[in-house]
């Protein structure tokens, strides 16, 4: 199984742990990630908030670059995933846009390169059975709240890989790892995403309500797939504690970190030391399973 891998900018900064853990997961499962040479920023939220052609072109340039290799492009970051898929949709459904994008980037692109999220690849291409065969450790009943946020699932017309109101793909991965996937109502609520720096007040209020719902549902940690969700939910717990006097102590892990842990990847690649809220509850659950078995 070979894929062209598009890391996205945050893989080099805020979500380095998502990047290294997903590469470790791919390696352990025999999935070949071939990094797209010369990849550039997808444009993210600031591009589409500024100019539609700019946004579509920045993303399309990467897909055009990937086209020659003829493989599906696999992405981890929910924001990159959404932008690349939106660019595909824009150029394939709108001839005027296709022409403008072609002019802007100096080339032709028809929107035909398949963009896949790593979760999608794990569930649909590899399959949960094959994944389970390779697992070395279990989450051992750890209660995990799967948090999808916005961009992985919305809008349905463009993303189209899971239900936009009640997605279940991460739930299935958690169950496959021996964890208990919590049923809770805030799976697809918004954490404030790109408002992190501009309207921190709003992000604090939105993350507070997500965290309090996860806590009420009995979660011991939250699994995410988006760098913005991870940073907001993890880092803002400090502010919530300081400004609102509430302490959640809920570790926020990328789903790929949970997988890397259960696949026995190295500590460095799993990157649990990158988290602001220490994930002791998670490692303790995995270790308790190991000592019970021996």
């Amino acid at each position, binding site marked *: 199984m070979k894929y062209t891998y598009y890391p996205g*900018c*945050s893989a*080099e*900064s*805020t979500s*380095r742990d998502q990047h290294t853990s997903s590469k470790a997961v791919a390696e352990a499962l025999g999935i070949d990630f071939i990094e797209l*040479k*010369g*990849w*550039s*920023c997808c*444009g*993210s*939220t*600031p*591009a*589409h*908030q*500024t*100019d*539609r*052609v*700019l946004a579509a*072109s*920045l993303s399309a*340039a990467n897909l055009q*670059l990937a086209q020659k290799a003829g493989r599906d492009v696999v992405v981890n970051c929910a924001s990159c995933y959404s932008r690349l898929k939106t660019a595909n949709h824009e150029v394939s459904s*709108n001839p005027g846009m296709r022409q403008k994008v072609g*002019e*802007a*980037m*100096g080339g032709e692109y028809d929107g035909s390169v398949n963009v896949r999220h790593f979760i999608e690849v794990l569930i649909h291409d590899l399959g949960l059975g094959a994944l389970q065969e390779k697992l070395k450790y279990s989450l051992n009943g750890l209660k995990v709240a799967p948090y999808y946020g*916005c*961009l992985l699932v*919305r*809008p*349905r017309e463009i993303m189209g890989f899971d239900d*936009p*109101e009640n997605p279940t793909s991460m739930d299935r991965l958690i169950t496959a790892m021996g964890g208990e996937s919590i049923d809770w109502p805030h799976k*697809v*609520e*918004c954490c*404030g*995403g*790109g*408002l992190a*720096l*501009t*309207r*921190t007040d*709003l992000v604090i*209020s*939105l993350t507070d309500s997500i965290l309090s719902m996860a806590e009420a549902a009995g979660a011991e940690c939250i699994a995410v797939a988006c760098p913005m969700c991870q*940073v907001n939910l993890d*880092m803002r717990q*400090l502010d919530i504690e300081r400004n609102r006097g509430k302490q959640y102590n809920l570790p926020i892990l990328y789903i790929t970190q949970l997988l890397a842990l259960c696949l026995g990847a190295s500590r460095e690649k799993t990157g649990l*030391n*990158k988290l*602001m809220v220490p994930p002791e509850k998670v490692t303790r659950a995995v270790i308790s399973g190991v000592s019970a078995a021996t």
Partner: protein
Amino acid sequence: MTIRIKKGKKINGIISSVQEMSGVDLSVCFQCKKCTSGCPVSAHSESPPAEIIRRLQLGAGNEILDSDLIWTCASCETCFARCPMRIDTAAVMDALRALAMARGAKVPAGNAPLFNKAFLKTVEIFGRTYDLGMIAAYKIGTSTYLQDTDKFPAMLKKGKIALLPSWDADKKTVKRIFNKTVKTR
């Protein structure tokens, strides 16, 4: 909300520009307000999404570009996902932001336009984002040096903020895209 309409006044306003830029037909909105109920920031904003659409239908002009929702909107797409008429309100918000910048609307709280500019500037130069450069430009522009500084040391230590920008992107194509789009308009 109270909306006053002068008798006999012809409706024009900026709705046609918004529809053209977003590719969305706003005439089919029947004010069910599902967009507003699901919007994560409507409770924190003066005008919720359904109201913005209604005001556009009724002929709002440039004054609507000062609405705070244009910049509190997190582009979460919940409004689009839940609209029974398939109106892409998130795309309407993008069009309103572009118009707000082009027509010099007032600077919103938190100055998101400056953040977007700082972000895109690093992309234009390096082909990829460079967090430190972007954060510095934004913080200098908004004089919010102290906010979040408590988290910086930990983030740097954990490698969550890269010290140096990346050099491996296809910078030529990215520069060309900027030159052919936002720079020539």
